[in-house]
């Protein structure tokens, strides 16, 4: 029997093993650890469905059209990235398997080919992102630099009403615990300023009456995040993570 999944093989060397008088000592690593699905959790589906971008998940009937055309899966060849399979795992609530893809699930490039083709009108791209959000929100996936950037970006927009690049840069540096050398920052800043792409300080655009808009947006974000609480989400909620806007 071929070993198809090396990570599942446990090396078990038994020096002396006697089974009813027969010596069966040796390497036991040619056996696959059984992977019986023992715990299905409907909360995952509820969470994704309750999310404003995940509500089409229950339309999926697992035809595989999305995966068939997916840039990541087929063109780029990242077989691990399988939107149909992620949806299936979320639908049946197989969390143990789903968390193995906590990283891969974010490889979607949002080409939307899947959405264009899905015969059931599943917003696959949004649903896949929501499944990723679930994994983060329930503490099953480490927050990636991209998540932190998303968070900084959202906060930046909420604060200024329009992107303030310098502020975004500062916040993100802080979140990453990174320090870019001053000379490099200066060089970058000047280039951006000259090309008219830097809007900060005296050059900042202003969004008029932003405070009012901001309070509306914040209220909406809080409402959006009012999905059923994810399992195991201790201190991190979607709202706090800005996950509700993803």
């Amino acid at each position, binding site marked *: 029997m071929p070993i198809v999944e090396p990570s599942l093989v446990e090396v078990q060397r038994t020096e002396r093993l006697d089974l009813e008088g027969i010596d069966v000592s040796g390497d036991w690593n040619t056996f696959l650890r059984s992977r019986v699905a023992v715990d299905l959790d409907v909360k995952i589906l509820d969470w994704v469905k309750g999310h404003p971008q995940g509500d089409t998940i229950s339309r999926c*009937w*697992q*035809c*595989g*059209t*999305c*995966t*068939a*055309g997916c840039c990541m*899966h*087929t063109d780029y060849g990242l*077989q691990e990235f*399988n939107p*149909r*399979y992620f949806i299936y795992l979320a639908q049946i609530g197989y969390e143990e398997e789903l968390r193995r893809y906590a990283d891969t699930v974010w490889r979607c490039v949002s080409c939307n080919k899947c959405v*264009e*083709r*899905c*015969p*059931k*009108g599943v917003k696959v791209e949004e649903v896949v992102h929501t499944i990723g959000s679930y994994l983060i929100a329930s503490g099953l996936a480490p927050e990636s630099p991209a998540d932190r950037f998303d968070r900084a970006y959202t906060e930046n927009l909420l604060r200024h009403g329009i992107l303030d690049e310098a502020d975004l840069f500062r916040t993100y540096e802080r979140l990453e615990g990174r320090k870019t050398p001053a000379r490099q920052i200066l060089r970058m800043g000047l280039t951006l300023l000259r090309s008219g792409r830097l809007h900060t300080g005296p050059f900042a655009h202003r969004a008029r009456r932003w405070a009012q808009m901001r309070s509306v947006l914040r209220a909406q974000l809080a409402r959006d995040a009012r999905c059923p609480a994810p399992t195991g989400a201790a201190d991190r909620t979607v709202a706090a993570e800005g996950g509700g806007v993803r």
Partner: protein
Amino acid sequence: MNPVLVLGGGPAGLSAAGELASLGAPTILVEREGYLGGNPKRWHYSLLAPDLRPTEEVMDPLLGKIEGNSRIELRLSTTLAKAEPVEKGYRVTLRSAGALEERDVSSVIVATGFDHFDSRRKFEYGYGRYPDVLDFKEIEIMLHEDRVLRPSDGKPPKRMAWILCVGSRDVQVGNPWCCRMGCVVSIKQAVEVRRKHPEIDAYVYYMDIRTYGLWEDLYWKSMQEYGVKFVRGRIGQITLAEGGSRLMATGEDTILSRPTEVPFDMIILASGMEPSAGTKEVATLFGLSVGPEGFLTPRISDLNPVDSGVPGLFFAGAATGPKAIPDAITEGMGAALRAFQYARD
């Protein structure tokens, strides 16, 4: 008694007209095309699923009852231009070759049927662009004449695929319904191919196999006796492969959870059923309610599928939804009886 008007010369309409004549009712049979027989004739259906009976064995007796029947006034290449309800029945205007003619009829049977889905609308499958991508409209005549050859180079294929649910169960083309016959007909076609040409490999790409009731038998036989292979997954796109000489079906084998890119020599699309142009016209002329799918809706379909709810107007066949030939024939009989009762009373 004023004649009963039957609209449509497919299996349902032929059956209705034949029954009316044998009940002694004068009948006008109107058909838009210049021939009788509907889709089975138009596309030269080969064998019928599930018993692999030649289509002629079903259509010829139906046609035989019509031709030369003195009670039936046959009006080919004719359409309905106008219909007004009168005290009993309708005053209708028939149009043939530009000429209009007014007639009083005692009741009307709508048997305007379906059209096969235009597979060009599923552009990612390349129908109409790649000559070796065919659908039900072309493969049946090939099977009928036993010349299953690639239109591109006239050579026999080595490996063929069927893609189910094309233009059915698909909100992208606006057709959420199941065509009811695509599975069994595709399987039947694969069996026909394998029976005569066991050297051709046959693969069926499916999401679900709906060979309901006794049709299941053919599905089993196709695997057990004819070696037809089934892959669970819906093909995402068809492109050219091997320098344009073959077709490449890209999909996900959802059981393997892997992409599949398999070259084929011919691919058959199981093109579904849509309400025909005639069905849509009739709905407008009589002001009938149609369902969200565009098919005519009987008053209570569970109770009496041929009863339109409008006095003197009856339905038969695929005008009310995808239907197999025997069901259309049965409904034709039911509608004939109802129309006769209405006309007589």
